[in-house]
């Protein structure tokens, strides 16, 4: 009589600076599925983890932006390739996290892949739609180019665990920024699975940092951090918005308001792509 197979359970940790460390605090919290059954103990990220992630993101952003736009495009496309290869797994995780049917979950994963492909292609086109030359009245060649805002703190959508996350993070990365993400507090598993996709996609270390834990602890630290240039409140609960905006205003951090739950079904457009860009205008004299 053969022994029953004992499956190997995964230990979920943070995704920080391209590595998978535990929270420096040593804490974890219990994550359950949509029916309340135990799924995993996820790392409960601390304020210190946020600060470490911001530091990693600053370094990562410099490297990410120093690569060619064409290269950034193919790295994000690579992430779509890796996600495609793990479609079945992601379908299971989304079902477990969101309580949707397998069919719906599969459609959400497919849409997530499409969204990555969509934004991947924007990397080397954004400057062409948002930049250009300005016909100024004088002997100057004047041109404008969009540049990344820098390090962006993201409060991930709380309900849409994979499609919402990718719809928010991909455009920020496509524009050349790095992110520190507070993942969905109750549904963090798809995000941490996605970390493995990114880790195998040639994305430079620190460009995308994913922190699981309590929003109430992670979000204020991100908002008030002086080296965070932008804050996307996509998944922030309404009662948190005013205090987070007030904290962000101390350093004139650019803020994106909470997303509508229906947004992920819509044509993504360019709004999120340009939200964390800065236009730089250069004037040069013309003369013989």
């Amino acid at each position, binding site marked *: 009589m053969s022994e029953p197979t004992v499956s190997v359970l995964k230990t979920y940790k943070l995704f920080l600076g391209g590595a998978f460390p535990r929270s420096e605090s040593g804490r974890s919290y219990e994550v359950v599925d949509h029916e309340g059954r135990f799924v995993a103990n996820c790392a409960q990220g601390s304020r210190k983890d946020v600060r470490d992630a911001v530091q990693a993101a600053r370094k990562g952003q410099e490297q990410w932006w120093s690569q060619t736009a064409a290269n950034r495009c193919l790295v994000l496309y690579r992430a779509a390739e890796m996600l495609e290869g793990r479609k079945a797994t992601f379908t299971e995780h989304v079902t477990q996290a969101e309580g949707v049917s397998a069919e719906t979950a599969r459609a959400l994963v497919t849409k997530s892949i499409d969204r990555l492909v969509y934004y991947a292609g924007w990397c080397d086109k954004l400057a062409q*739609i*948002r930049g250009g030359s*300005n*016909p*100024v*009245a*004088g002997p*100057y060649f*004047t041109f*404008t180019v969009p540049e990344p805002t820098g390090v962006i703190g993201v409060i991930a959508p709380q309900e849409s665990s994979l499609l919402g996350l990718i719809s928010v993070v991909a455009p920020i990365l496509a524009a050349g920024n790095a992110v520190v993400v507070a993942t969905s507090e109750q549904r963090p598993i798809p995000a941490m699975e996605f970390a493995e996709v990114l880790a195998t996609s040639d994305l430079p270390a620190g460009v995308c940092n994913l922190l699981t834990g309590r929003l109430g602890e992670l979000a204020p630290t991100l908002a008030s951090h002086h080296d965070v*240039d932008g804050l996307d409140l996509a998944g922030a609960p*309404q009662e948190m*918005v*005013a205090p987070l*905006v*007030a904290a*962000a*205003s*101390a*350093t*004139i951090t*650019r*803020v994106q*308001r909470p997303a509508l739950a229906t947004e992920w079904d819509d044509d993504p*457009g*360019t*709004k999120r792509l340009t939200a964390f860009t*800065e*236009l*730089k*205008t*250069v*004037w*040069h*004299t013309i003369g013989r």
Partner: protein
Amino acid sequence: MDATFGLDYAAAPESASVVQIKAEYGLVIDGQQVPSSDGQTLESLNPSTTQPLFRFALGTAADVDRAVGAARRAYEDVWSPMSGTARAKYLFRIARILQERAREFAVAESLDNGKPIRESRDVDVPLAAAHFAYYAGWADKLSYAGLGPAPRSLGVAGQIIPWNFPLLMAAWKLAPALAAGNTCVLKPAETTPLTALLLMEVLEQAELPKGVVNLVTGDGTTGQALVAHEGIDKVAFTGSTEVGRAIQAALGARGTKLTLELGGKAANIVFSDAALDEAVEGIVDGIFFNQGHVCCAGSRLLVEESIADDLLERLKRRMSTLRVGDPLDKNTDVGAINSAAQLARITELVAAGVAEGASTYAAPCPLPEQGYYFAPTVFTDVSLSSRVVQEEIFGPVLSVLTFRTPEEAVQKANNTLYGLSAGIWSEKGSRTLWMAQRLRAGVIWSNTFNKFDPTSPFGGYRESGFGREGGIAGLEAYLDV
């Protein structure tokens, strides 16, 4: 007598009589001049004489409420349903009338603000007209701006503008807002409301429908009431970083769209291969233009070490020919400081620089006995952490630092919380572009400085604010795309 060339100038004053200033102005709400709800007024001075020019209404929260109400009605009944072509024609009319009344506006601006007539005549007024003309042309082609297939106006815009370019800032705010189909409540600065008041006459002559633009003059409390008003869909603010912070925090969870154009501490970087005399002109324009009351002023000079002595020598020689005095004199290079408060701030910061051990050179020009004046001043022997190097002085005060390599220049230039503008002086194009890529600033001038154009986006990185004015980006600030 001029010390350097032995030349003297005969005064060439512009006549103040080309502008008729009334003794008192009201608010302009729904096309009507009205006093403030509690009858309170403020006084505007001529900073070059410190004599009173006129009185104007101190708008209250109740006045703001009436103005927002008028703007809302005009938005819903008239301006938003109007065709883009019609809106375009109104804006073109405004541009034309401003051109027709250019001389009057230039004199009014110099009287109320203290800036030299040469600047109000050649920069402020023509650029203001150009902004209306440029955005006029967008009003009927918004869906072709490339911002999205169906851009929509936001509603009522609350706009707060500063005292350094009063008419030009009014144009920067109103023109894109109106072209995009919004209506406006404009709050000019407490010390310089004159040209905004005169602009309301222009709008009336252009037969702009009543309530499309409402003017609420007043002080900081008036601006606060405007930001706090729930009926505002968009806030546009140009002014200090400190107030910008407060506005961002005050809007809190409200969905109000916000753009901020705040302070700056721009680096003007001169390489050893630059055309030095041209660079000297650029340094002078960069910091002494408009008495240094310019958010994008080149207030930190970064000079390549090998030419620092030579350049400073040339700069001082050029500064010795600057003429400080009567804003209405066409010979004047540097006019009056806008207010006693601003003069006190400049004086305080310069004293702090001296106390920190910096050396100063002040232009040896005579200053008028009456009025608020400050001699163009250069600080040397300063460190990156000096207050005069870190803080925005908003006056004719330059600090000089040196560098040895392009990397060091970038590092020092970016060593600020601001990020509005920067200048690069070099004949080497590839290095200029290399620098331009690395400077964290919204506007970079290469072999020129302080140039503005309605087609060209202007605005900052970091604590210099967010959003852009000018170009298509300036239009986007007033659209839901």
